[in-house]
């Protein structure tokens, strides 16, 4: 290959790469384009998943199954779970923000493997369309997002096989992304930038990607075995043919428990970026945050059977997994108190990004408390497969992660578009979402404690009022999307010009133009040792003077 000097002043761009709006529909290898592709694609699937949730809540307004046939209800709830987890939360909180931010944070011009990155994204739209289209072609899978046999082997095979195919593609995408993030964080750091000087989101993505690489392949293998059971009538998970159903559950949860951390660890990282900027304080306890993330990664791999306490699990296993799960509360609690300490005494700008972050802290601690409760066998046996579990799960992934996704959009929108979002609409969005979310899911704790099973279209009439309350909350959540959608679309054209660094932030993505140029910086990448060096006027901070850990450990 010949190498030559680019002529003076000429902007070098990879050829065959469109540069206008068309690039968002192309096989672009620019990490920022790919990040936005993930974000917009994920949001479209969020709207679909939300519509499916709306259908579920409409059905549950009355105790009888009168809005849709029962098998359609099964399909709708399966699609809702699969779309929201595999097509909205995992791609957006990992792929979208990870691709956009990680190269900035490590001081690189792109991800380690740009083409693999584009491949990883472009696996998602076909997989998603395949999944959705199964509803119209043959009827979608009916066995929930867990696809437990014998449910998954006795319901209509075609929908289940398409579901497996789609999840395999999405798993592949996730693994490719994970490999890319690990290589980028560990290998592509700008010379002179130490690991313990990285912004927290890098650590969160490193931990998440380790979980992705270690656990997603197990799900892939499991689903291949399940597809053999369905297509070739083998008996891996069929006791009638000498197989074992519980083995499926073990293998499935070996991925799907870490999957919860794959969905929530990046959110931890994003919140750790947002809070210091708007509180004008260093992130409290940087080192403990890092060790907590790594502790969660290790513990997250050895707690899966707490999902299976009613599956004939032997007592020693129950004991081990209860204790291991309870231990996870320690690193999680450390992170929770670190965020509170970051807020404590800060000059908090109570804007939409901070409101959503605080909403996250409140919701997440509630979800965490019910999580510790669910890890206790005597309690879990009582509420297993009831709406209590549904409430707990949604407090983690919606109250936790989705709130953080919105906070992140409010925080980084000025960087991505160069324009500010409307604050009034943002606060309205927060208010509607926060009230709607809690109205929708808080009552479900009560429903579960009183014995209403999940995933069933009909229920005891005594639960009708609480279900209607919950459905009203869901309606409010649906309405809350409108000011948000209007805000992001209108602000892209008419929003106030943001400038390069509207929040006076110190992390590297703000030290370039908004939107950033191709390859991120004109000239050399900045070397930021103190991504959280707030508390002194910005022009007095010498970015190269002290190492970040000095500041973090002294707690200034």
């Amino acid at each position: 290959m010949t190498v030559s000097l680019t002529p003076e002043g000429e902007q070098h761009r990879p050829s065959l790469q469109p540069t206008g709006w068309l690039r968002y529909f192309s096989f672009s290898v620019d990490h920022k384009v790919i990040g936005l592709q993930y974000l917009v694609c994920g949001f479209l699937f969020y709207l679909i998943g939300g519509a499916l949730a709306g259908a579920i809540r409409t059905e549950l307004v009355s105790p009888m199954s009168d809005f849709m046939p029962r098998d359609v209800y099964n399909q709708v709830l399966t699609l809702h779970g699969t779309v929201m987890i595999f097509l909205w939360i995992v791609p957006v909180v990992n792929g979208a923000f990870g691709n956009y931010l990680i190269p900035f944070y490590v001081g690189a011009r792109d991800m380690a493997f740009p083409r693999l990155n584009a491949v990883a994204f472009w696996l998602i739209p076909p997989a998603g369309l395949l999944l959705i289209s199964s509803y119209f072609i043959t009827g979608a899978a009916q066995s929930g997002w867990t696809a437990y046999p014998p449910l998954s082997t006795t319901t209509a095979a075609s929908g289940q096989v398409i579901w497996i195919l789609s999840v395999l593609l999405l798993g592949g995408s996730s693994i490719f992304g994970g490999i890319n993030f690990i290589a980028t964080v560990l290998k592509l750091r700008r010379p002179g930038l130490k690991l313990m000087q990285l912004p927290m989101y890098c650590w969160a993505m490193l931990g998440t990607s380790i979980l992705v690489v270690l656990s997603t392949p197990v799900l892939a293998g499991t689903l291949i075995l399940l597809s053999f059971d369905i297509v070739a009538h083998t008996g891996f998970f069929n006791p009638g043919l000498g197989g074992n159903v519980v083995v499926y559950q073990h293998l499935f949860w070996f991925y799907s428990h870490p999957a919860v951390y794959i969905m929530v660890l990046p959110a931890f990282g994003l919140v750790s970026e947002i809070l210091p900027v708007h509180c004008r304080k260093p992130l409290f306890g940087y080192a403990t945050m890092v060790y907590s993330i790594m502790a969660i990664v290790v513990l997250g791999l050895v707690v899966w059977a707490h999902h299976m306490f009613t599956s004939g699990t032997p007592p020693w296993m129950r004991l081990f997994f209860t204790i291991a799960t309870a231990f996870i509360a320690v690193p999680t609690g450390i992170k929770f108190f670190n965020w509170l300490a970051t807020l404590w005494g800060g000059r908090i700008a109570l804007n939409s990004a901070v409101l959503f972050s605080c909403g996250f802290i409140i919701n997440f601690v509630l979800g965490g408390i019910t999580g510790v409760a669910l890890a206790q066998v005597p309690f879990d046996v009582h509420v297993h497969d009831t709406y209590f579990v549904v409430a707990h799960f949604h407090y983690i992934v919606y109250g936790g992660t989705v709130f953080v996704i919105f906070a992140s959009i409010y925080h980084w929108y000025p960087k991505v578009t160069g324009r500010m979002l409307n604050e009034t609409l943002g606060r309205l969005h927060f208010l509607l979402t926060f009230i709607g979310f809690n109205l929708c899911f808080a009552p479900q704790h009560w429903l579960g404690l009183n014995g209403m099973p999940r995933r069933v279209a009909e229920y005891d009439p005594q639960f009708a009022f609480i279900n209607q309350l919950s459905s009203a909350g869901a309606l409010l959540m649906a309405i809350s999307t409108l000011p948000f959608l209007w805000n992001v679309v209108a602000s892209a054209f008419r929003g106030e010009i943001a400038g390069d660094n509207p929040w006076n932030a110190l992390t590297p993505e703000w030290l370039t133009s908004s939107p950033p140029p191709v390859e991120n910086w004109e000239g050399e990448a900045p070397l930021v040792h103190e991504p959280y060096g707030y508390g002194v006027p910005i022009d007095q901070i010498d970015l190269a003077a002290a190492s970040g850990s000095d500041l973090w450990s002294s707690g200034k």
Partner: protein
Amino acid sequence: MTTLKPSSTDVASTATDHAHQDHRMFGVATFLVADAMTFAGFFAAYLTFHAVNPLQPDAIYELELPLPILNTVLLLVSSATFHKAGQNLRKGANQVCRQWLMLTAVLGLAFLVSQMVEYFTLPFGLTDNLFASTFYALTGFHGLHVTLGALMILIVWWQCRTPAGRVTSENQFPLEAVELYWHFVDGIWVVLFLILYLI
């Protein structure tokens, strides 16, 4: 700042030049960790079945040892021949490297043939019982890896046909990546042989 930028127009070369160093082997190794976890899942399932699901009374599940031992030898030798190929490429001896590569591919294909012979002489089929299914799933998934590996070896063999070709002593990545993969597949076979045939 003055930077060296490639003037060639194809996307492929410009895309990888964003990186200052070549991290592709790191990526391949990480991918193999993921691949190993797939096998780990299968092995865990098999061992659990082995521990808690007794063979049904009328089921036939017997394995002979000679062919699998031959297969183990074939793969272990092929790992060594691949290593020789890599050594020769680094010395710039493309033609010798190609001979070793071809020998490796032939050994890989011999493994596959021997595996097929075993499949057709076994007294049980895929759906006969749980252990039959597990046996075919595990060896089949591994055989798929060997097939892909043999194909990739032949591609590399083609790519280093001239000293000015794509795979040379300056650009060893394709050969090194396939070599790492091939050693990995051999390692998996050794574990599989221990678990499936000896336990």
